[in-house]
């Protein structure tokens, strides 16, 4: 039953994806700049620019370019990125896991701090714990990520020398694990290569903390608000009156009911973080998808920009599906077909 519903949900995503394909194609063409000029090189003259334009297929009328693009997409060819010189699909296959790994670790870390913090603040509103939560959250959200990143590098790498050099996913002494999932932690664990696992984990610490500090605020705030609401509802009053143990009330009943908005927020924070961690990626030389997209935009690299947007669209379709499924797990009252 559920499988059929998931299938229906996926079918509904098809028009979304088609829309994304059309819109990104049109929007990238509306970008300022002429990729032929950009990629013809420093001293290219009119003739060689024209030559490049023909090689890139940019001399054809737009509808014809679009038909060619869609045809290529259907064959699984996402085109070649000009700025990295690689097929877009292989670029994405390498960079998306890098961003996902960082974002997921950061979110795990963030949840591990923010949810208990929110619960703590909500159970004793107005107390010093509540104020502590407020201070942490305000500090986290008001520090720009590149500033936190550079500060952490300065203190833990430059001054204290306890962090590894902030040079991407692995120090160059380690060989990247054979790609299975593209997540270095998982791949190296699968290969049983614990040295590389350790190396990859160490590289993750500072950028993950940087991002966690930034994503702490919405999660903690939402947890606090949802918990306050849940704690003041009738069923909690009933539970209290019935003399149920405090832990059971807070974690068994209140938190479970408060989790729905938190999961929704989490989904939003995740999508936001994946796109917004460009600055973290730049500071830590992290070969992620955000910096890829920005560099492609700057260079009017059509195929790469289209590939990025399409990949993100597919990712969010999946993400929304997962969140909807999670709702049903968290709250049995919500049937999947009702959402």
């Amino acid at each position, binding site marked *: 039953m559920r499988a059929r519903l998931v299938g229906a949900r996926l079918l509904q995503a098809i028009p979304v994806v088609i829309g994304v394909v059309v819109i990104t194609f049109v929007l990238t063409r509306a970008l300022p700049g002429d990729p032929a000029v950009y990629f013809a090189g420093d001293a290219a003259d009119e003739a060689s620019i024209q030559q490049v334009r023909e090689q890139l297929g940019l001399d054809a009328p737009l509808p014809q370019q679009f038909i060619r693009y869609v045809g290529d997409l259907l064959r699984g060819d996402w085109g070649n990125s000009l700025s990295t*010189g690689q097929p877009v699909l292989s670029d994405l296959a390498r960079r998306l896991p890098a961003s996902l790994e960082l974002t997921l670790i950061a979110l795990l870390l963030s949840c591990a701090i923010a949810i208990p913090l929110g619960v703590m603040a909500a159970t004793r509103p107005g107390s010093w714990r509540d104020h502590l939560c407020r201070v942490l959250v305000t500090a986290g959200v008001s520090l720009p990520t590149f500033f936190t990143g550079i500060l952490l590098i300065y203190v833990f790498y430059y001054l204290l020398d306890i962090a590894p050099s902030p040079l991407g996913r692995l120090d160059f002494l380690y060989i990247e694990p054979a790609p299975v999932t593209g997540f270095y932690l998982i791949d190296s664990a699968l290969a049983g290569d614990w040295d590389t696992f350790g190396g990859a984990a160490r590289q993750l610490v500072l950028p993950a903390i940087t991002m966690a500090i930034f994503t702490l605020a919405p999660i903690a705030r939402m947890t606090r608000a949802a918990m306050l609401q849940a704690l003041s509802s009738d069923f909690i009053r009933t539970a209290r009156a019935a003399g149920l143990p405090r832990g059971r009330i807070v974690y068994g009943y209140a938190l479970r009911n408060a989790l729905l908005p938190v999961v929704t927020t989490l989904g939003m924070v995740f999508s936001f973080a994946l796109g917004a961690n460009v600055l973290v990626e730049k500071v830590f*030389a992290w070969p992620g998808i955000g910096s890829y997209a920005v560099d492609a935009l700057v260079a009017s690299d059509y195929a790469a920009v289209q590939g990025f947007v399409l990949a993100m669209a597919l990712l969010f379709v999946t993400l929304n599906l997962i969140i909807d499924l999670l709702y049903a797990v968290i709250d049995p009252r919500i049937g999947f077909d009702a959402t």
Partner: protein
Amino acid sequence: MTDVSRRHFLQLGAATASALPFLRALPAHAQSGDVLVAVNGQTINSLDLHRTGTNRPSYQVAINCYDRLVSFGTKPSMGGGLEFDYSKVEPELAESWTVSDDGLILTFTLRDATFQDGSPVTAADVKWSFDRAVSLGGFPAVQMKAGGFTRPDQFAALDDKTFQITLDAPSKLAIPDLAVPIPFVINSKLAMANATDDDPWATEYLHLNTIGSGAFKVARWVPGEQLIYERNNDWASGPVPAYKRVVIREVPSAATRRAVIERGDAQISFNIPSKDALEMSDKMEVNSTPIANCINCVGLNTKFEPFQDSDVRKAVAYAIPYEAIFQAAAFGRGAPLWGEETERSEIAWPRRTGYVEDLDLARAHLAKSGYPDGFEVPFSISLNQLDWMEPTALLIQENLAKIGITVTIDKIPGADWRTASLVEKRLAFHLEGFGGWLDTPDYYFFWAYKDGHLFNSSNYRNDEIETLVDNTLHIPVDDPAYAPNVKRMFEIALDELPRIPLWQPALNVALNGASDYEFWFHRQLDVRPIKPA
């Protein structure tokens, strides 16, 4: 890109292998002289310079992994370390060469060298590589044309060791143009074995593989992350490099690059911001070499009516706060180009212009012009080059306001900048920073002052300049007409001022634990001469 498995990689250096898993061993190991780590901020997007779309940072692969027929000598640089010496052409893959009396036939004798697969380098390989450089089009073809090489039938392999070029007209630029990164020698047998009907020049194969006779080969390349060079112990065209392996790491953030080089985890940080160069120069070796034949200048577009008035152009030139700009935008790195020329010879270029900041003179010129009450003009700068363009623009805006010219600053997206400034040449008032690879003034004038040429962003045309450049470009520098012609070009250009030179920018490179850096006109890192400090 060779597919390097973990096992294979470990075998590359037995001594390295034992240290591999231990992170703590890295700095000590790197300093031991086997591995050089260099950081830079740009992406290498191809291993093949001739391919369409290959960007500037990728040129270093052609330099480090392939040989050219000739190279330049070196001389001490005023920016520290050594720099290339344009006046001394030295052998690389060619052992010797002769030039026929009419200057049309260049005959090269190749040295005994082998490609990295062990096969000998023959004149047929050189011929194939040169054919490729002129046939694939784009920038390589343009640069080859500057030396007079346009068609494959100009190149001939007379026998295994003798390669001949026939020029259509004699030119002093021909032999120097063979030392630029473009005409590199490829293993043609291996390339042809990997060519297809659609791709007769094997661009897909060379995009991912380096098959030359050069000092290094690329052992591993992950675009956007790193590129690893591995030494060719049998390199015949020069002394074997000191480092076994060179890791080029891409680090976009300048702050991170600075932290890494200061901590000594990288030995070279290439092309650092001038501000960092100034601040780091007392802690480590920082070379700031003024870039040969390169000038940061203000362009006055003749299509914009007020700039057709000579007095307006002079008023602008006297209103520019040169010293303040040099300090704010370049942090004093590079060479000033204002005031009177006293040190350099009469035909040296870039040279001081004779103009200084003098607002009274500026006002006097403006009063004499057709626009005594000033005018309004947008000043265009590129969002990609804000580091020097923004402070320059702001200081110029401030001073021009004092003489009555109202300037609004117009920031143009990086992807659009080349189209707007160089191709369409539609920016009235802008900044430009052309540098010529071949280091003669007439070559600079050819690109920047001739009508319709790419870097003439001012739409400047002067019939005398047109004739002078055409007559001077190909004659030798010791020709009796050369010096007077060049002097006359300077005179016209500095009087008419379609471009107002500001300063000669520098390329800043920091070294911590490495030495023997050499500056080259191509502005890329030549890792071959670098040694551990």
